């Protein structure tokens, strides 16, 4: 089976992290976001993953090459026909990963929205009659890919959307469907009165015939394709069990981290660190070094090669690879970027995000600071703002 992952956009909401690293490669709970999805897809029988990317694809390609060792992948170039006839190759590379699957990059010359990428990858997606997955690259959950296949084959129609229950549905677009069969009636954007508490979770499974509906132009699958499919009775909803989060922005990235770690506590508790100095769910890479009298957690992820000096207190944070936090500092709800250096007696809170290689001087206070890469911070930031 095949899967198309909509990496698409510029990843602007996850800046400053995405100024250094393409979003799919940003580590979420110590593993690139993309890999969380790809590993689950492989378990469900997918052997070919197509990444639909737009302007970042050169960088992603370079990163993928650099990550070759880490992901254990081989690269071979394969030129594919350009559907719009401009003579340039568009789907650039094919990766062979140690997972035994193929990963292709499908490069959109202009952003094609949420449906256009399907048309671009038409050749690849229609080479057999198996259904294919489409995923939003920002989604994290207990991926239900096997269940999706079963559900989809059971109703036999063209499309299945995974939906998830949320507390405040009117912030999103909700899905109205028949409880028993799952047949979708309609979609309502940001409803004023309660209509449904189920929203689109950003994971679909389609039969190849769905591609007849989509043209190669910027298209919104939610606004243009789905309503028609629903009317024709070709769209069904499968309710997701367990946690779900769109981790495309730092605040939600941290919330998603808490949910994921809690789910790990149920599934593979041996991966989490316990003992004195560890509260709640804490994930620590084996190459990280932790000093004396530190207290970590709840809800902390410590990346590879991270150094925490004595007396550090961290709560609800992600610390990315190679960062150093010096002694007696206190961090809550932060994302510390790769190779950052946080000084002594620093206090950081309220979704402070440090881009790559940021230095924070001793004794400062950062409240909701969003710091771009390679900055040195020499003054406190008492109120939330962006530091360029």
């Amino acid at each position: 089976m095949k899967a198309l992952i909509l990496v698409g956009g510029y990843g602007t909401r996850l800046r400053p992290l995405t100024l250094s690293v393409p979003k799919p490669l940003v580590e979420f709970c110590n593993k690139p976001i993309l890999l969380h999805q790809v590993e689950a897809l492989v378990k469900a029988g997918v052997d070919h993953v197509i990444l639909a990317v737009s302007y970042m694809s050169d960088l992603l390609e370079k990163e993928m090459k650099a990550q070759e060792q880490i992901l254990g992948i081989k690269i071979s170039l394969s030129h594919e026909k350009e559907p719009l006839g401009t003579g340039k190759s568009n789907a650039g590379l094919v990766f062979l990963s140690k997972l035994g699957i193929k990963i292709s990059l499908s490069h959109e010359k202009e952003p094609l929205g949420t449906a256009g990428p399907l048309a671009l990858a038409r050749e690849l997606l229609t080479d057999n009659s198996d259904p294919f997955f489409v995923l939003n690259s920002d989604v994290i959950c207990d991926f239900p890919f096997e269940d999706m296949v079963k559900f989809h084959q059971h109703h036999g129609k063209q499309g299945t959307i995974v939906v998830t229950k949320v507390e405040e549905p009117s912030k999103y677009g909700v899905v109205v469907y028949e409880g028993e069969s799952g047949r979708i009636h309609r979609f309502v954007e940001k409803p004023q009165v309660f209509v449904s508490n189920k929203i689109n979770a950003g994971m679909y499974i389609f039969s190849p015939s769905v591609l007849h509906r989509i043209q190669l132009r910027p298209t919104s699958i939610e606004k243009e394709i789905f309503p028609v499919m629903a009317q024709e009775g070709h769209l069904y909803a499968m309710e997701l069990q367990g946690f779900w989060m769109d981790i495309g922005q730092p605040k939600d990235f941290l919330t998603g981290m808490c949910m994921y770690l809690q789910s790990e506590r149920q599934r593979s508790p041996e991966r989490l660190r316990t003992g004195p100095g560890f509260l709640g769910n804490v994930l620590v890479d084996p190459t990280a070094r932790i000093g004396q009298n530190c207290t970590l957690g709840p809800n902390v992820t410590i990346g590879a090669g991270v150094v925490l000096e004595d007396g550090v207190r961290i709560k609800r944070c992600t610390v990315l690879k190679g960062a150093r936090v010096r002694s007696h500092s206190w961090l809550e709800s932060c994302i510390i970027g790769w190779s950052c250096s946080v000084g002594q007696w620093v206090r950081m809170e309220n979704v402070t995000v440090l881009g790559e290689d940021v230095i924070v001087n001793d004794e400062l206070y950062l409240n909701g600071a969003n710091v771009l890469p390679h900055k040195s911070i020499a003054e406190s930031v008492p109120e939330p703002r962006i530091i360029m």
Partner: protein
Amino acid sequence: MLKAVILIGGLQKGTRFRPLSFEVPKPLFPVAGVPMLQHHIEACAKVPNMKEILLVGFYQPNEALSRFLSNAQQEFKIPIRYLQEYSALSTAGGIYHFRDQILSGGPVAFFIMNADVCSEFPLLEMLEFQKEHGNTHVILGTTANRKQSMNYGCIVENQDTNEVLHYVEKPSTFVSDIINCGIYLFTPEIFEHIGLIFQKNQQDLLLEEQMNGWQRAEVIRLEQDIFTALAGREKLYVYKTDRFWSQIKSAGSAIYASRLYLNQYHKTHPERLASNEEGRPTIRGNVYIHPTANIDPTAVLGPNVSIGTGVTIGAGVRIRESIILHGATLQDHSCVLNSIVGWDSTIGKWARVEGTPSDPNPNDPYAKIDSETLFREGKLTPSITILGCNVNIPSEVIILNAIVLPHKDLNRGFKNQIIL
């Protein structure tokens, strides 16, 4: 022989020093590890022929003051007495009321000093200056920058003779950049001038039909009533100093004054400055630590830190530009910057207590500490964080630019607020 009179004010004065002044009279607040007044007394005791120090004010008799006086007398071997005004008589009224006490024994001259100034006290130089200028009255002056001078008493000087030609207290337009330091050297003749003003007041008030007119006549201000009258009559001369000087009106200025005095200790009291030693906390810059304080060797203190009696400081604590008052406890990894931590207060682990310094511009040699108003444009002006006596700060919170009144148990962090 000589005498010195220190004007210490009373409870109704010095409200800008709250909440610290709730516990202890402002003149006894520790600056650079010792009570504010002690710096004055030490300077006076060094003057040869100083026979007596008189404190004039309207504080009710209290234990702290009495204890301080008896300790000081023993330590400096000089009689020190407190003369309590029956009501607030202002800067000249008090000394006029007690003129007989001041003049008893026949001093040739006497110093008058405000308690709430921080200074190097060039008293010997003032005496010398007085001799050179025909034994007249001397006022200590210093240079301020143009903008700030209008917050003080302004002195127009004859550059050749050093005579005070004109004096205005807190003018609304620029008059002079030489300001009044609140330290004076008078001869007994001053009481004639004050007496004249007193009589004039009485006459004015009789015309006004006031019930307590006789009391109000005694309220005489040195600055507005005496100096303005004496200016330009070859009676009053100004001795200018460029040594350190600052007012201590608000709690923030206490930290600045501490810094000035701690720096002076290199010359006057090097034994009061802590040094870096094996097995002791790391010291940066000038730090005063009372011998009874208990400090973990992994703590890092300074610059400009004063630690009071019986203070406990845990592992990995960082303190900078702050005053920690007696009996306070700072738990592990906490961080205190630009703050005053009140007597017997507790700061929890990893807590951050931080204020905003109001120091004068270091690039301007004549800049003085700002006497900022508490509120500006409806918001609390960021200033030194003050924890009153017996305040408890829980672990891991931040207290930023806040003033916490005594005996409060906080349960969360606060910023830019006064917590009653």
